[in-house]
C-alpha cells in the first residue's frame, strides 16, 4: 500500500515536471550566470560583452563638423556658386546620415543629441529648399531678360508668377531655418561647440531671401497690367484644412466662353470656362496638398490675375497600425495594416511610413477607404514599430500610431521551435505508447497463459483403485489455514495454501497424482476449456507474480489472491467439488 502511494506520488511529480517543462519547451528559462550576476549595486562584468570600439567619442566632433558645414553652403548660394553649394550640401547630407546612424546605434535618439539630430534634419530641408529655389530663381532672372528682349509677354508673366511662388517658399524655408537656431545653440553650448559658422549662415540665409524679395518685387512692378479687360481672381476661404473646399471665382471681362487656367503653386491645376458674363468658378478640394502657404493665380492667354496666397492648416489625424510577423515571401517577415482618417473621414492616397525603432522604414499608400497594407523585412529582435504620416504632402498634422511591439525571430528559430514541439509530441507519444504497453503487459501477466504438460505416461495415469487420495480440504479449511498464515505474517505461505488447494481440485478432476510437481501454468493447461478458466488464469497470473517475483509477498497481494481464489472456487463448485 505504502509503495503504491510512493509510486503515485512519483508519477504525479513526474507529470508536474513534464507539464512545467512542456510549457517552457519553446522558450526555456534555465539557470545561467546572467540570472544571478546582477544586483542593485553592480553587475558581474564577466557576463557583459566588451565593446569593440567607443563610437561615443566621435559624436561631439561630428556635431561640430555638421554645424560648421552650414556656413559655406549658404555663402555659396549667396554668391550664386550653385555647383559648389550643391557639393557642400551633398557632403553635409552624407555626414548627417552617418551621424544619424551613430546616434541610433548609441541609442541616443531620445537625448539632447537626438534633438540635435532632428534640428539638423530640419536644417537640411531648409538648405535644400534654399538651394533649389535660389537656383531656379536665378534661371528665371535669365529667362526674364530673354523674354523681355523677345517681347514675349505671356512667358514673362509666367516667369514672374513662378518667381513669386519661389520667393514664398524661400521665405518659409528661412523661417524654419531660423526657428531651429535657439535649440541648436542650446545643445551646442552644452557640448562646448563653436556656432560662429552656423550663426553666420542664418544671417546669410536672411540676406539671400531679402535679395530675392527685392528682385521679385521689381519684377512684379514691371508687369504691364491689362486694365481695360482685366482677369480677376478671388478665393474663399483663404485658410482651409483637410476636407474643406476652397471656392475659386473670377471674371474675364468681355470674354464669354473662354478657357481660364487656374495655377496653384505655379502648376496648372484645372481649366474653367467663363460664362456669358465672363465669370468662372471652381472648387478646390483640400485633400492632396501639403500644409503651409500656397499661391494661386489664373491666366488666359496674355491676361493674368493677381497672385493670391492661401494657407493650409494641419488637420488632426487618426492612424492605426496592426502588425504581425510571419513569412510573407521575398524575405518579408512583417505584415502591417491599418487605417488613416481625419476629422471622421478616411484619407485616400496618403503615403504612410512604417518606422521600426532602428530607423529604416517601409512605405504604404492608403486606398479610397483610408486603409493601407504592406509587407516588409525588419531586423530580428524585439522591435517597436509605429506608422507615421507627415504634413509634407497632405493637409494633416504629423501623426504617429500607437507603437506595436513585435518579436521578430530568425527563420531558424521558428523552425527550431517547430522541431522542438514535434520532438515534445514524439516523446509524449512514445511515453503514452510505453504506458499503454505496460498496462497491457501487466494485464496479460495477470492472466497466465496455459501450458501443455509434456506427457510422461508413467506419471500421468489414473489412480489405482487401491490407493485412496487424501481428503480434499474444504474451502473453509483452506480459509482457516490461510488466515493462520496471514496472522503469522507468512504471506507467501498463505498464498501457497490457496494455490495448492486449487491445484488439488484440478489434479483430482484431471487425475493428476503428482500435481504438486506441475508448474502453475501446466495446471492451468490441464484445466483449460473448463468453466471459470478465465478466473483461473487471473489467479495463476497473480500467484506467479507473488510466488516467483523478486519482492516478498505483501499482505495486499495475499488479500487480492484470496478474492481470486473465492471466484475460482465458486466456479469449481465451491465445497461440492
Amino acid at each position, binding site marked *: 500500500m505504502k509503495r503504491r502511494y510512493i509510486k503515485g506520488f512519483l508519477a504525479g511529480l513526474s507529470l508536474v515536471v513534464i507539464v512545467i517543462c512542456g510549457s517552457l519547451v519553446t522558450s526555456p528559462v534555465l539557470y545561467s550566470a546572467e540570472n544571478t550576476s546582477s544586483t542593485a*549595486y553592480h553587475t558581474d*562584468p*564577466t557576463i*557583459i*560583452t*566588451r565593446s569593440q570600439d567607443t563610437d*561615443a567619442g566621435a559624436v561631439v566632433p561630428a556635431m561640430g563638423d555638421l554645424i560648421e558645414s552650414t556656413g559655406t553652403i549658404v555663402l555659396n548660394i549667396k554668391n550664386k556658386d550653385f555647383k559648389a553649394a550643391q557639393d557642400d550640401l551633398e557632403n553635409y547630407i552624407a555626414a548627417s546620415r552617418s551621424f544619424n546612424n551613430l546616434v541610433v546605434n*548609441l*541609442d541616443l535618439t*531620445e537625448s539632447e543629441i537626438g534633438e540635435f539630430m532632428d534640428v539638423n534634419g530640419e536644417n537640411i530641408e531648409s538648405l535644400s529648399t534654399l538651394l533649389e529655389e535660389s537656383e531656379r530663381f536665378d534661371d528665371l532672372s535669365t529667362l526674364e531678360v530673354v523674354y523681355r528682349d523677345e517681347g514675349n509677354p505671356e512667358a514673362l508673366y509666367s516667369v514672374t508668377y513662378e518667381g513669386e511662388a519661389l520667393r514664398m517658399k524661400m521665405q518659409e524655408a528661412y523661417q524654419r531655418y531660423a526657428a531651429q537656431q535657439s535649440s541648436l545653440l542650446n545643445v551646442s553650448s552644452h557640448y562646448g561647440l563653436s556656432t560662429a559658422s552656423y550663426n553666420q549662415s542664418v544671417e546669410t540665409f536672411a540676406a539671400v531671401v531679402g535679395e530675392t524679395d527685392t528682385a521679385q518685387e521689381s519684377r512684379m512692378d514691371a508687369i504691364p497690367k491689362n486694365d481695360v479687360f482685366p482677369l480677376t481672381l478671388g478665393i474663399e476661404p483663404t485658410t482651409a484644412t483637410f476636407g474643406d473646399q476652397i471656392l475659386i471665382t473670377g471674371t474675364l471681362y468681355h470674354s464669354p466662353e473662354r478657357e481660364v487656367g487656374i495655377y496653384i503653386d505655379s502648376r496648372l491645376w484645372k481649366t474653367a470656362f467663363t460664362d456669358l458674363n465672363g465669370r468662372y468658378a471652381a472648387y478646390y478640394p483640400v485633400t492632396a496638398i501639403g500644409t503651409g502657404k500656397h499661391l494661386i493665380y489664373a491666366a488666359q492667354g496674355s491676361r493674368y490675375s493677381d497672385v493670391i496666397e492661401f494657407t493650409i492648416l494641419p488637420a488632426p489625424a487618426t492612424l492605426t497600425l496592426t502588425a504581425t510577423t510571419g513569412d510573407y515571401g521575398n524575405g518579408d517577415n512583417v505584415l502591417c495594416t491599418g487605417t488613416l482618417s481625419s476629422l471622421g473621414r478616411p484619407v485616400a492616397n496618403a503615403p504612410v511610413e512604417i518606422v521600426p525603432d532602428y530607423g529604416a522604414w517601409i512605405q504604404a499608400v492608403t486606398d479610397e477607404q483610408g486603409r493601407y497594407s504592406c509587407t516588409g523585412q525588419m531586423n530580428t529582435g524585439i522591435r517597436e514599430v509605429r506608422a507615421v504620416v507627415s504634413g509634407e504632402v497632405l493637409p494633416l498634422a504629423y501623426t504617429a500610431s500607437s507603437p506595436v511591439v513585435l518579436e521578430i525571430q530568425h527563420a531558424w528559430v521558428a523552425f527550431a521551435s517547430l522541431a522542438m514541439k514535434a520532438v515534445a509530441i514524439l516523446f509524449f507519444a512514445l511515453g503514452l505508447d510505453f504506458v499503454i504497453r505496460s498496462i497491457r503487459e501487466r494485464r496479460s501477466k495477470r492472466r497466465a497463459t496455459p501450458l501443455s504438460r509434456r506427457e510422461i505416461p508413467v506419471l500421468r495415469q489414473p489412480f489405482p483403485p487401491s490407493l485412496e487420495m487424501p481428503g480434499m480440504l474444504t474451502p473453509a479449511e483452506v480459509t482457516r489455514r490461510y488466515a493462520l498464515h496471514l496472522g503469522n505474517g507468512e504471506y507467501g505461505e498463505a498464498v501457497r495454501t490457496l494455490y495448492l488447494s486449487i491445484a488439488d481440485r484440478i489434479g483430482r478432476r484431471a487425475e493428476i497424482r503428482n500435481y504438486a510437481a506441475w508448474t502453475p501454468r501446466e495446471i492451468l493447461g490441464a484445466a483449460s476449456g473448463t468453466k471459470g478458466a478465465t478466473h483461473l488464469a487471473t489467479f495463476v497470473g497473480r500467484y506467479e507474480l507473488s510466488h516467483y517475483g523478486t519482492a516478498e509477498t505483501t499482505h495486499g497481494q495475499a488479500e487480492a489472491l484470496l478474492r481470486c481464489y473465492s471466484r475460482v472456487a465458486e466456479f469449481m463448485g465451491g465445497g461440492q467439488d
Partner: protein
Amino acid sequence: MVRIKFIRLASAAIVVLAISALFLHLSTTDDEFSRHNVGWNGTAVFAGKVEDAGGVMLADTAALPDYRDAILLLIAPEGEIPDSEIGYYRAFLEHNNTLFIADESGASNKLLREIGSEIRVVPGNISGFDSGYADASLPNGYPEGGHPLLEGIEVITFNHPAQVMGGEALVSSGLFTWYDLDGSGRMEAGEPSGRFVFISREQSGGGEVIVCADPSTLINAMLGRGVPGDGVTFADNLLSYRNVVIMEGVHSATATTGSIGKSLEYLKASPPLQASIMVVCLLLAGIAWRKKYV
C-alpha cells in the same frame, strides 16, 4: 585485510573531503561586498591584498586615534556611524592620516558632514557611453590632476556608480554620461547629462578625505583579469599610498559574514580562545596516545 583497510581509508578520505567542502561552503558567504565572499560580488580579493600588504582589519573604531601615516578604507559603509564614534574619525584625521570612503548609497554623508568635509555622495545611477563594455552602467572614469593615487592610471571602469559633489575632482566621467533616472539604460530627455565626478578629495580636519562614489570598483569581479582599465592599479595605489593600511570592519559591508565565518572571525580576534582550543587539542591527542601505547 588489505582490501578492508583500503576501503576504510578511502571512506575516511571521502568523509574528510565532504566535511571540508561543507565547512568551506558554510564559512563563505554571498553577502554583497563581504570580504569573506569569494564570489564575483565580494571583496575577498581586495581583503587578501590588504592582508598581503600587512594591513589590519579594524574591529574597534576606538583604536583609530593611535594610527599615524595610515589610510583607513571605509568600503560600502552601512548605516549611520554613531555620534559616539565620530570623534575617533576626527582624531584619526587630525594625525594627518587619510580617510578613503567608497560609498554609493550616501550612508557616509553624516560622517563626512561631522568631520567637516564638503564632499557628499549623491546616490543614483550614473551611466555612460564611454565604457569598455556594451553596457552603459559600467562607465569609464578619467583622472583629473596629478594625485599620487592616480599614478599609472589612464582609465578606471566603474560599476553602477553614483556621483560625488564637492571637493577637488580626481576622477570624472566622459562627456556622454547621464543620470539614468528611470534606469532604462538610455539617455533620454530630462535626464541630466554631461560630466560627473566619481572620485573627489579634500584636506579636512588636518588629514585628507577621499571619496569614491562606487565601492564596486573593489569587488572581486572588477579586480579580475580581463576588466578593461586600471582598476587593479588603483587598488594597489590605495595599499601603497600610506605606510599603514586599515580596512574598516565595523560599519562596512565588507565585514558581513555567515555564522561560521563570524565564529572564525571571533576566534582570530581572541588569542585566549585560540590558546584554549590549542590546549584542548593537545589534551585529546595525549589521551589518544596514552590509550594506544600505554
